[in-house]
């Protein structure tokens, strides 16, 4: 079985985000980068299928600047066999990233399953898996928290509004966007970490797959940080006074009523 996993490198969840000089993006200085947590579910699921099906290979792809090679190495250390780095500028949007990934996927041997995380935790756009499925003309399923494999099909359990679930059957090949609950991602063993350091990472240039700057549909003009959180306010007094103060606050300060 040929299994592909597309991952994104994102700032660690604890990072204090700063904006760059002209407020068109974030300042990458001092950021600790990690594999987006939902993508770890994707890698883990692919590895588990591989372990159950002898002769399978897992290839990870990541589109982004050179730093994303570290994320690919993390995936290799978890047990992926091959890695592909798709060159992509820092400013790229979901459309451009999806087109680049789809281009790179077409260059790989045909895959039965292509995994993604349901969204990257940096921009939280949750668009790339569906766009890639579209570019490739494949069926896809998002927010997947359970998978069962049949012959030629896969049944995905996905979370829908209100905490309910639905089951979707897809013919293979298919695109799956993983959600929490699908599995518990492993921690790489040391021999695998060592091996991963030495593995080759294949580089794909944008020109090779017919993607250009013109594919970037969204340009960020003026990013703003959210206002700093203010300390909570405790409303004191008897019930009547408290209600009065609260209404006053909601009307005059928060301006919501």
């Amino acid at each position, binding site marked *: 079985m040929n299994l592909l996993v597309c991952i994104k490198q994102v700032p660690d969840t604890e*990072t*204090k985000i700063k904006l760059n000089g002209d407020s068109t993006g974030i300042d990458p200085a001092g950021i600790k980068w990690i594999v987006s947590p939902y993508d770890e579910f994707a890698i883990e699921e692919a590895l588990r299928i591989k372990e159950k099906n002898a002769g399978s290979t897992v290839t990870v792809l990541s589109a982004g600047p050179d730093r994303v090679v570290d994320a690919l190495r993390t995936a290799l250390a978890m047990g992926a066999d091959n890695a592909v780095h798709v060159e992509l500028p820092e400013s790229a949007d979901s459309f451009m990233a999806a087109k680049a990934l789809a281009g790179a996927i077409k260059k790989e041997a045909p895959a039965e399953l292509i995994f993604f995380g349901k969204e990257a935790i940096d921009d939280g756009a949750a668009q790339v898996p569906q766009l890639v499925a579209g570019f490739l003309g494949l069926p896809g399923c998002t927010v997947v928290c359970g998978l069962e494999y049949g012959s030629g099909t896969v049944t995905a359990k996905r979370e829908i509004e209100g905490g309910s679930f639905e089951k979707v059957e897809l013919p293979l090949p298919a695109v799956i966007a993983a959600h929490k609950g699908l599995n518990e991602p492993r921690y790489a063993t040391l021999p695998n970490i060592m091996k991963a350091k030495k593995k080759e990472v294949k580089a794909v240039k944008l020109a090779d797959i017919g993607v250009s700057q013109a594919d970037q549909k969204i340009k960020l003009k003026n990013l703003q940080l959210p206002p700093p959180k203010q300390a909570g306010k405790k409303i004191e007094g008897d019930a009547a006074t408290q209600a009065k103060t609260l209404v006053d606050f909601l009307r005059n300060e928060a301006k919501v009523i």
Partner: protein
Amino acid sequence: MTWETLAFLLVAGTAFGISGYKFSLLYKVMRAQTGKAPTFKDWGARIGQLFINVLGQKAVLQSRWVGTAHTMIFWGFIVITIGTLEQFAMTLYSGASFEFIGESAYYALIWSQDFFTLLVLVGVLMAAARRYLNPPKYLGQSSDANFVLIFTGSLMVSIFLMNAFHSLGNPWFKEAFFISSGIGNGIASLGFTEEQSHTGFTVFKWIHMLLVLGFAVFIPGSKHLHIIAAGPNTVLKHLPLERGMKSINFEDETVTQYGAAKITDFSWKDALDLYSCTECGRCESLCPAWNTGKPLSPKSLIVDMKKNLHANKAAIIAGKSEEVTPLIDANVTEDVIWACTSCRACEVACPVFIGHTDKIYDARRNLMMMESKFPAEVQPVFKNMETNGTPWAFSASDRANWAQGSDVKTLADIGSATELDAVLWVGCAGSYDDRNKSVLKSFVNVLHKAQIKFAILGTEEQCTGDAARRIGNEYLFQTLAKMNIETLNRYQVKRIITACPHCFNTLKNEYKDFGGDYEVIHHSTYLAKLIAEGRIKPAKEMKETVTFHDSCYLGRWNGIYDAPRTTLGAVKGVNLVEMKQNKETGLCCGAGGGRMWMEETIGDRINVKRTEQAIETGASVVATSCPFCMTMISDGVKTKDKVDAMRVMDIAEIVDQTT
């Protein structure tokens, strides 16, 4: 050749043949161990160990009653063996005798046989009284032990009877055998003929010799193997108390196994440890895991590992390592391995100096790095350490926020540590945990009052990696250690003070292996020194009853018991009381060995048990000197609903409030 000589040759030949064969197997198994043994230096001190702890029985005597019994038996046997050798010689050749040493010396030898036989007999009775009348729980049932007591007792009785018959009709021996001749008088009153007396002597001599030879066959397969192994094990023990974990060289590409997956992955010294265990249970009696209902008993761990070694004997000797069964089995389970708090109470109590913790760490290293099997809740902790340099989920850039408004400089501000008295190592708890942040602020206040020139690394400091190392993630530990050492060396840091015993131990004892050599001082020692030098005076009265909780990494790992007590004792009004377990036998708070980051799902909670001991003292303040102890005991006080009656304070806070 007499029938006696012939019979002796036959029996002794068989017995020593079997015994020798068994010992040769034990030796081969030991030599086939593949793990790297430590190098042994400092032979002067090792000879010292021979006198102090082997011949002097110091560690054994830590338990008064049974230690005394053991010492009597031990010394008795050494002396009696000389007589037994003579007996063997005489049986082989009837003219043989040790008389050549001179008459008075020979007289002393004969006299001593009687004296030490009595000593051993009394020792055996004392040990039996303890084992059967009022046995401590940790002793357990042991058929080996029953056998040894009956055996040794019978051996002594046979010696007395043999000597008694010997003394009949022989005035010189009658005088020298000053005890058994009394028994001889009793026998004489039965009216034996000279010939009958001689037969009596021969009968008991043979009973004695057969018992000795039987014992020789029994020893190698029993817990009594310690009489051979414990001596060398004591001489080869790890000498200084302070000890870091042994490092793995990841650059060495010939190493493909990290930690111990099989019993053979340990070193020959570990095998000697296993051979040395006497199953006395002292380790178990103090183990916080065992005493709160966890599956780990350090004694059972050693006994079970020895069983594993014996069960795999054939494969080990044949060099078929692939046939050796895994270390983790039905007895030594993963739960056993993860239950350890690395408090080291077991090692400090062990009379034969077995190193339990290294074995547990080696098992963890394999589970963690080779098999990626560890309590799931630890994974985010590792990830935080990897990305943010702290086990907590906080940003590395917030590390120095605690110091805002405290007038603390960073090394980045001043460029180098050369003009400073010391660098303050804050640690992750001091940086991010609210309760411990205020401890750090108090300590900083004290440093200001004493006009100490110090600085912190600020956001350049990272977790020392203590927990990663104890959990078995040596790779992550070394990554963090190397980054910290690079930073410290870049600022030419020579002296470090820290309020965290885990950071203290790691920086002091473990960073050396990676090029970080610093004078590291724990704040308890530093506070005691500042008070002694008169740089601070805790003159404000604090009318409280205070009990001090020993941190394992300060006490048992580094021998610091007095400094925090001296500091507390210097505070006016403080009435210092001890918990029933204190200093060497102090009970761990439950957070060491990376347990801080694991759920405690089996048995009772260790921190609650320790808090109960603190409550028993009637103290109004529990003083701690470790951020993890602070967290654990505070939790315990909340669980016991004693928040109003008992405060948990770091010694730095007490000093800050009273200066």
